[in-house]
């Protein structure tokens, strides 16, 4: 070994040089990978600015002339303007965020801070529902909402959030509340605060990071959800954005991909905004809790 080392010594680069080369190699691999990852999205953006004929002729990557015709035609839609779909999605997603933040935090507070009877039993049941596939409850839920006359309204999309059905967020919040020193509640209790006041004035404000993570993920998942609106909403005026895209895809023929691609890109904008503002929180949330993201 020693002899070999000496033999190669003159050709060996210094450590700094080797580090630089290694860094260069890693960066090139990472940059190439990153370009490949975002290429489909760039393609979507560029294509949305092309005319239909140009999308299909694939003459060049760049549009010969930038035109927003696709956005105008897509937004106008056929029977209903795409603005309606955005409004519906916004209403449902906002209600879902508010519902999850409040309902899940109330329930998490009960599990983390109040010693009530049979708590371990309920806790075990709640944890059990986290792993339950959504499809297993889909049909009885549909029957229930059908009997309540809520089919073709937003209620089936919102009510589960008001009832803390997404137990994962409850668990996330429980873990967070456990990190808040109990002495704070006890001091308040001695000062005569009620349980609700402790929740409202102490725990709720202190659990802000968990609430924000819940809000972001609830927004993204509700906004992207396709199955639930597909099952419950049949009136086009109530369609959410994913349904609107699906409607456009199945009604427009091969001739008009332009408006469809334009609306697809537009529908990603709320998600991209969330990404730009909360990117670090999203990624940290996934890294620390294993949320599926």
């Amino acid at each position, binding site marked *: 070994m020693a002899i070999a080392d000496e033999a190669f010594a003159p050709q060996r680069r210094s450590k700094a040089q080797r580090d630089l080369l290694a860094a260069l190699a890693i*960066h090139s*691999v*990472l940059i190439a990978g*990153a370009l490949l*990852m*975002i290429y*489909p999205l760039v*393609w979507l953006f560029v294509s949305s600015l092309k005319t239909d004929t140009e999308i299909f002729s694939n003459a060049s990557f760049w549009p010969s002339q930038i035109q927003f015709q696709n956005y105008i035609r897509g937004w106008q839609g056929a029977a209903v303007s795409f603005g309606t779909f955005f409004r519906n999605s916004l209403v449902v997603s906002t209600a879902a965020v508010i519902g999850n933040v409040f*309902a899940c935090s*109330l*329930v998490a*507070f009960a*599990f983390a801070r109040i010693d*009530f009877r049979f708590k371990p039993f*309920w806790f075990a049941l*709640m944890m059990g*529902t986290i792993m*339950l*596939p*959504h*499809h*297993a*409850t*889909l*049909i*009885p*839920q*549909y*029957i*229930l909402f059908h009997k309540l006359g809520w089919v073709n309204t937003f209620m089936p999309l919102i009510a*589960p959030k008001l*009832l*803390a059905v997404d*137990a994962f967020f409850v668990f996330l919040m429980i873990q967070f509340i456990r990190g808040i020193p*109990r002495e704070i509640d006890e001091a308040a*209790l001695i000062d005569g605060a009620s349980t*609700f006041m402790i929740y409202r004035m102490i725990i709720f404000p202190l659990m802000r990071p968990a609430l924000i993570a819940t809000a972001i993920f609830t927004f993204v998942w509700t*906004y*992207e959800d*396709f*199955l639930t609106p*597909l099952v419950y909403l049949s009136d086009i005026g109530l369609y959410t954005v*994913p349904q609107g895209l699906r409607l456009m*895809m*199945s009604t427009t023929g091969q001739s008009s*991909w332009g408006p469809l691609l334009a*609306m*697809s*890109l537009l*529908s*990603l904008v709320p*998600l991209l905004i969330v*990404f730009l503002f909360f990117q*670090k929180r999203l*990624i940290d949330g996934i*890294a620390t809790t*294993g*949320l*599926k*993201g």
Partner: protein
Amino acid sequence: MSAAALAAPARAAAKAASGASVARRNRDGYLFLSPWLIGFFCLTGGPILASLYFSFTDFSLFNEPAWVGLENYKRLIFDDPRYRTALGVTLAYVVTSVPLKLAFALAVALLLNRNISGVGLYRAIYYLPSLLGGSVAVAVMWRKIFAYDGVVNDMLLWFGIDGPSWISNPDYALSTIVALAVWQFGSPAVIFLAGLKQIPPELYDAADIDGAGRFATFRTVTLPLLTPIIFFNLVMQMISAFQAFTPSFIISNGTGGPDDSTLFYTLYLYEEGFSHFRMGYASAMAWALVGIIATATAFTFISSRYWVHYGDR
């Protein structure tokens, strides 16, 4: 737990001081729990039992459920070739997409775990597809990218390859959906990266002193210590892969075609339940899915005894 035990005397004092009785704690506890309790009985726990009952009935929403015993399950197992197809498609999707996704995730996490600049930016870019990937918009885009006159074939043409019509060819349609899943490897990569950061640097120093090369270090230090995270990612990705719905629905335009090659389990369940209103049969399918996911998860847990290394053992 130990912190709670230490705080116990203080809490007892506080309770005595404020006179918080057991009755009050029970009342408050159930009051705060009530949203979830209602949700549990009406929307999760209750329905799971209801769907078990429906799975033994013939039920179409417009008639009363009629008890048929094990008929639905018998049909699933013996007389429904489309169910078998759906099961096969889904299993093929799970066993290809999950390992590929995890392999890419691990590779990128290892690259990002070095002391290089711009890690935050790379992490964000690689994560972005995971955030957007579940949307209909991306599925629509994917359909166009893999069309006969799409981008993928344009690129293949540079290499002189005349690509097939990926979406409308039964041999390739499923692989486009697998590709869409693999493209979203960013979120498991983020979890891997967090796990890699947890590995104590002393272990790498020790390996270095022992003269272990880069590959030996990876095999004897990094990989064993990462197995709990690999296990976690594997279980989570597997469970969600079994339930994949949107990509197959959009890419096949709701049909599971061509030739049922993208007929995912959930797509067939949706079709039976909400297009044909065979709700009893769809309930049996849902319960079979619960059983399949539970079995797959149980096997993964059992196998973990042989390959997952926990630091405290």
